[in-house]
């Protein structure tokens, strides 16, 4: 009995030492989107090596990231979707979005011999509305004269879990099809007219690979690292664009507003891939909240500054599209305007 007690006491004491130890260094805490998680962990690892500042990021989903920021329990949140006005009202003070990188959603499919397909916005929305049901539909065949399309039923696959990927994809569909906008709408979870739900990118990819004639949407980085076939998509300017890091970066090659709060789907950019979007880090413009210190606020701003500049080098090796020059400049300005008790941090 005594032995157990002593052991427990030792453990308790050593833990309290750990805590003291931890408090000496600044440690930053973030939570949110899972899509940029691999990139963030690589960035934060590198940042820790350079500055000895530890950043803890939990991939709990965009919705969770927004909630955590509003309840003021984190230094920053991560999100793939713009924070809605009613959420900002709930927070009470100004939330700013800093774009970190770009992601894209690709259309993947399971057809004999995996031909390279060309698709346009009408076909994609009609397939997901359940109006085009066969692969040899006239509309698809017309765009792909060199491919012999089979008379196979199209099995529509989509995400079952709430996800930023769904949000970007349905945002695109809402922009290009008024019928989709009226009937279905956009969001992280929606009421799908047709199809099977699968969990996560791996789930959708697995289902598409298993069901002959299936079509699904996954993140570009997932499709690239798994060598899946994906379609070229006709953008607003009429060009068929192959999804790639370059064409995704190019989608932000437009006049960005100062707060970067723009959805890049169906972009005006001439060679931009049309189903792309920013992923943002969100934080309060006024960094003085929940007993945070000036040092903590300063380190948060420093970290973001590093992420949009030097940290960008980690994007491409991990198949993320880096920020365009234009986006980088806007992000820089947002960071420069972060304040602590009204005074600028950087």
């Amino acid at each position, binding site marked *: 009995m005594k032995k157990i007690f002593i052991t427990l006491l030792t453990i308790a004491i050593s833990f309290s030492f750990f805590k003291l130890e931890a408090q000496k260094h600044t440690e930053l805490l973030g939570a949110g989107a899972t899509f940029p998680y691999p990139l963030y962990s690589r960035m934060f690892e590198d940042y820790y090596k350079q500055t000895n500042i530890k950043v803890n990021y939990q991939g709990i*989903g965009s*919705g969770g990231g927004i909630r955590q920021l509003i309840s003021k329990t984190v230094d920053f949140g991560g999100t793939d979707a713009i924070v809605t006005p009613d959420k900002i009202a709930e927070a009470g003070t100004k939330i700013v979005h800093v774009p970190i990188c770009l992601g894209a959603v690709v259309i993947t499919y399971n057809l004999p011999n995996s031909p390279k397909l060309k698709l346009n916005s009408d076909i994609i929305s009609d397939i997901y509305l359940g109006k085009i049901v066969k692969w040899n539909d006239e509309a698809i065949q017309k765009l792909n004269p060199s491919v012999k399309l089979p008379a196979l039923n199209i099995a529509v696959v989509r995400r079952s*879990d*709430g996800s930023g990927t769904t949000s970007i994809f349905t945002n695109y569909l809402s922009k290009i099809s008024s019928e989709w906008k009226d009937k*279905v709408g956009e969001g*992280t979870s929606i*009421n799908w007219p047709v199809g099977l*739900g699968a969990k996560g990118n791996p789930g959708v990819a*697995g289902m598409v690979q298993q*069901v002959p004639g299936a079509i699904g949407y996954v993140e570009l980085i997932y499709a690239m690292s798994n060598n899946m076939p994906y379609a070229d998509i006709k953008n607003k300017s009429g060009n068929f664009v192959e999804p790639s890091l370059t064409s995704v970066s190019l989608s932000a090659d437009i006049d960005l507003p100062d707060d970067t709060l723009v959805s890049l789907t169906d972009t005006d950019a001439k060679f931009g891939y049309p189903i792309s979007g920013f992923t943002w880090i969100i934080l309060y413009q006024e960094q003085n909240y929940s007993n945070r210190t000036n040092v903590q606020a300063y380190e948060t701003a420093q970290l973001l500054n590093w992420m949009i500049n030097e940290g960008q080098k980690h994007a491409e090796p991990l198949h993320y599209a880096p920020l365009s020059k234009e986006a980088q400049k806007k992000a820089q300005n947002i960071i420069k305007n972060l304040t602590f008790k009204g005074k600028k941090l950087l």
Partner: protein
Amino acid sequence: MFNDKLFKYSLFFFSILMLLILAIIFFTLLDGSMLAIKNNGFSFLYSSIWNPVMDEYGALPFLSGTLITSFLSLIICIPFALVVAILLGEYYKKGIFSTALNTAIELLAGIPSIIYGFWGLFFFVPIMRQIQMRVNVPPFGVGIITASIILTIMIIPYAASIAREIINMVPSDLKEAAYSLGATRLEIVKNIILPHSFSGIFAGILLALGRALGETMAVTMVIGNANIIPKSFFSPGNTMASLIANEFAEAAQNIHLSSLVQIGLLLFLVTAIINIIGQKVLQKFKY
């Protein structure tokens, strides 16, 4: 004397703690779903539309999905569980065969549900797809029947191992008396063992049903996750637990989140009701 009292009170303390935890869980769910209860009204129970975009939340597709998969798996499970239990409890109480079978059952019970999900997705779903092509329904592979069969495999160990224990406990003087009257083994199983152990076996099945009702990961992976009321056994569907697991992380709207908590509350109540009914049935048939 003092020790005796201390022991008794600590027993009370820990038992009441269990009650308290149950109450806290219930009230946490109730509190979290208040917003949804006010907003969704009664249509939550009978509406079949789940549309987070338009803030319409109906639980019927998930309620039906949960009940259908659970009871279907229960029905498939009962004969298997009984056969295994009778074999191990009466015919092969000892020996290599019995040890091997017992270990296998315990191992099956210990496999994490995500593994069942993966196995289902990569092994069982393609088989289902072949069958569906034969009978000419859309060859998705996933759906209500696939989920039910995976669930069956998951709950057989629970029902079987409890039934085995109960059958083991049938007093041997009863059986010996029957033998002395010239009963055959089959007659003993039919007339002595099964009636005597009915309530225990039923309790085991109830426990298995509880697991089936709440199972999340394995079901999510093989049910197809379509938020509709299933029209046939091959149709895709969704369950309450699987919906929560799917949408919870990205539910940004308060009302969406609250509605998911309300689904949790509904699952809690459904489980409670089924258990209470089970207890009542149990009392009626107590041997």
